[in-house]
């Protein structure tokens, strides 16, 4: 589907997630030479025997990635350390403050974290060949410290057994209808990077006043952005206000009664970069894993099985899904999130009282 790909990438650019270039520090260094997977790298990685992946990607997907890696490179175990992006950020900060270097490769759904890690000099310059060849220039750090591993949206969703398609909300504004009071679930920006990013974008585009009205709707609050789709699938709540599109798509495609809604105001765009840490305890396995993550095989896996969107030029969207080209998105702005994250959390806690 070459056409689909082109239009998708055009849209990704146009939507301005390209703001990644804003990550660049004022002093521009050259990115290192691209690395291909060589037998020497595999051998060195095998000697280390394992790689530790801190990630906010929902467990079934991240563990599946790990198993795919282990199948391709026997003898190197992947340990997935999954928790919400904001907790990952906190955990790495806490570990590094105590001189504990446990993380090899990181993925976070809050792209602003990479600005901080880069500024603190924690990331290793490393560019897998696929990143150099197949990722659009806006999706990689000019200094070669990180690149966009995945993208997804935060979407509205509903349970098709509890809500008829014609009654389903179409917009964020619809969610303020009293008929949804007590029937909605929402994730929390204090835990989830997706929701942190989405909360920034929504507060910028439709204002904090919206959240204040939303808080009166007796919203069920959960932590991870992966949880609202699961609560929908359980039938615990009829509508989700925000949450991962990719988990919702997985559930829908496995036959569960859930349906995404792309709100007319725009769906918050979430980009999750990957990076290798400079002080990685398993430096070679980390680099091999990073190469694997950006390879077409893993990228197609996170699209087909994971329900995410890929920036890789050779990766096709899965048929039957709403192409990104046709979805109105809210632009992301990691630099602004980085400046405002503390304020966003405080404001949010004040409004929702948790």
């Amino acid at each position, binding site marked *: 589907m070459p056409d689909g790909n082109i239009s998708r990438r055009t849209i990704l650019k146009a939507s301005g997630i390209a703001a990644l270039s804003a990550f660049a520090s004022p002093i521009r260094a050259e990115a290192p030479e691209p690395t291909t997977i060589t037998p020497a790298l595999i051998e060195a990685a095998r000697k280390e025997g394992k790689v530790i992946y801190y990630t906010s990607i929902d*467990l079934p997907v991240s563990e599946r990635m790990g198993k795919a890696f282990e199948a391709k490179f026997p003898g190197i175990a992947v340990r*997935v350390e999954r928790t919400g992006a904001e907790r990952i950020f906190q955990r790495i900060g806490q570990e590094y403050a105590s001189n504990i270097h*446990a993380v090899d490769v990181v993925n976070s759904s809050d792209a602003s974290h990479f600005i901080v890690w880069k500024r603190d000099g924690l990331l290793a310059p490393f560019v897998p060949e696929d990143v150099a060849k197949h990722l659009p220039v806006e999706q990689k750090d000019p200094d070669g410290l990180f690149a966009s591993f995945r993208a997804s949206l935060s979407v509205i969703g509903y349970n098709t057994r509890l809500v008829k398609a014609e009654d389903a909300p179409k917009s964020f504004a619809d969610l303020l209808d009293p008929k949804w009071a007590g029937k909605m679930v929402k994730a929390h920006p204090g835990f989830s990077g997706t929701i942190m990013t989405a909360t920034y974008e929504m507060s910028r585009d439709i204002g904090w006043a919206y959240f204040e009205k939303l808080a009166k709707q007796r919203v*069920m*609050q959960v*932590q991870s952005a992966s949880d609202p789709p699961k*609560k929908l*699938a359980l039938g*615990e709540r009829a509508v989700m206000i925000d949450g991962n599109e990719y988990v919702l798509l997985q559930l829908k495609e496995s036959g569960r009664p859930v349906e995404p809604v792309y709100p007319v105001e725009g769906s918050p765009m979430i980009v999750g970069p990957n990076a290798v840490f400079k002080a990685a305890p398993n430096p070679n396995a980390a680099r091999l894993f990073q190469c694997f993550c950006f390879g077409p095989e893993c990228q197609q896996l996170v699209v087909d099985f994971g329900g995410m969107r890929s920036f890789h030029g050779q990766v096709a969207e899965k048929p039957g899904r709403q192409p990104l080209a046709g979805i109105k998105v809210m632009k992301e702005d990691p630099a602004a999130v980085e400046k405002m994250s503390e304020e966003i959390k405080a404001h949010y806690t004040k409004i929702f009282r948790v």
Partner: protein
Amino acid sequence: MNLTLAVPALPARSNYRFDLSRPILLAFAAALCMLIMLPLSWLVYFSFRDRAGGLTLDNFVQLVTDQTFLDPLVTTVILATSSATICCLVAAPMGWLVARTDMPLRKTVRALVTASFVTPPFLGAVAWELLAAPNSGLLNKVFRTVTGAESDEYLLNIYSLPGLIFVISCYTFPYVFVLVANALDRIPGDLEDASSILGGSAWTTARRVTVPLAMPAVLAGALIAFLQAMTLFGSPAILALPAGFHTMTTKIWSLFQYPPKLELAAAASLPLLVLTVALLRAEAVILGRRGYSVVGGRQGDSRRVPLGRWRWAALAAAFLVLLNPVFLPYGALLNAVFSRVPSEFVWFDNLTLHNIEFVFFELSATGIAFRNTLILCTSAATIGTVMAVVIAYMTSRKAIAWHKALGFLATAPVAVPGIVLGVALFLTYTRPPFVLYGTLWILLIAFITIALPAAYQQLQSAFRVINPDLEEASRILGATRLGTLGRIIAPLLRTSVIATWCFIFIGVIRELSAAVMLFTSDTKVISVLIFDLNESGDLGAIAVLGIIMLVFTFAVVILINRIPGFGGVRLRNT
């Protein structure tokens, strides 16, 4: 194995009692200070500091002026008071039924209360989510099917303050039950007999003899229940956020979010600490008066009140109560293990082994979490038991000067709630001179500290019933001190030592509140793994890990119950 580790350690020291008493005292006092005084000092120090390290009262000012702190405080008070009340109303009559009546299956009821005792409160909370989430909860589904109610009507809503109070009560009532039942066990029947001989009716006897005698235990139980509910982290951590409020413990935990506000967390921990100390003092005063209740000594078995045809009604009531902490939650977890959708009843069309497969073959943290948990359980139980044996020996045989101080230090940690200890240990061991964060040592220290008071009390009472005459007789007959300890004391202590070891083991399996503050990716334990899985709503995987945890725990509990003459030891909630 542990016994042989524990016992030979004693004689070597005792042989040179007079030479070594000072160094031993100093070593143990130093170790205990390290365990308890050092972290608490850091906690107090940090609560008076600002982020830059300057001296300030701002943390406390914020604590009493900021609405986001006052709300959790009020919530916690309501929560603790209601739970304590419910616990007393339910557990005191149950304790009486088991201790003083001829209700059938009394032993089974006691065993089932033990089961709710050892169930991790966070696991109980997850199970009750499966049962009583307003829309997907199994009980609400049954309710709608039976009554034909609309799809959005519900009978129970676990995501609410009453819901949380209920779940906390489920796993707190055993504290009251054990206290009351044990107290009633000890009350000699002849007091009641005297009352009836003097013409008192059954009602008069109950009102004027039994209830007053049991009252101190009920009051003490209420205080302990209040304390447990106030400092509990596990259940609120699962239920408070969806319900839309914070308790003090979840609030303290949330202060560890980025950017961490450690000084504020320290300040918020202090009220919990102060209240705990005060309540434990009150409990000691109340229980201290109990002395009068056993003036006459124990004369044979206590008299049992015949319930007549109410026997089975009483049993039914007891089982109805036990439905809540044991049968329903365990059933829900077991159901979730095998169900494709955790909140649907397992049937042929949705039966799956996927959850089990996921936990064992996909979830990469499973192995390391099990390994760490096992290492920590075994080593904390072993080291904790050895420490408790040595300290109990020294205090009960008055082997060294200042033995009372040792005993006090060993019991002091009981006044430190798990979450407070977690904060304090984090502050202590992430900075020089002792950087232990990121190792299993910091968790080991936390677990030993938490376990020590109960272990020490257990062994101290075991030593107390062994008359020193036995040791002296052995010595007079020519045995060495070492031989005496090996041949007289060790066999007599064996059951207590094993029981203590098992209790520490169980306590460590279910510990969450300190562990959640102290773990890193390499030092994850099962309880923390479950906690992380809850964040993303992976209920099936939680159910699998939870059931494994329970199987482990019950294997140990059954082992304890096979030990004859084993009395109740206080476990604490996490």
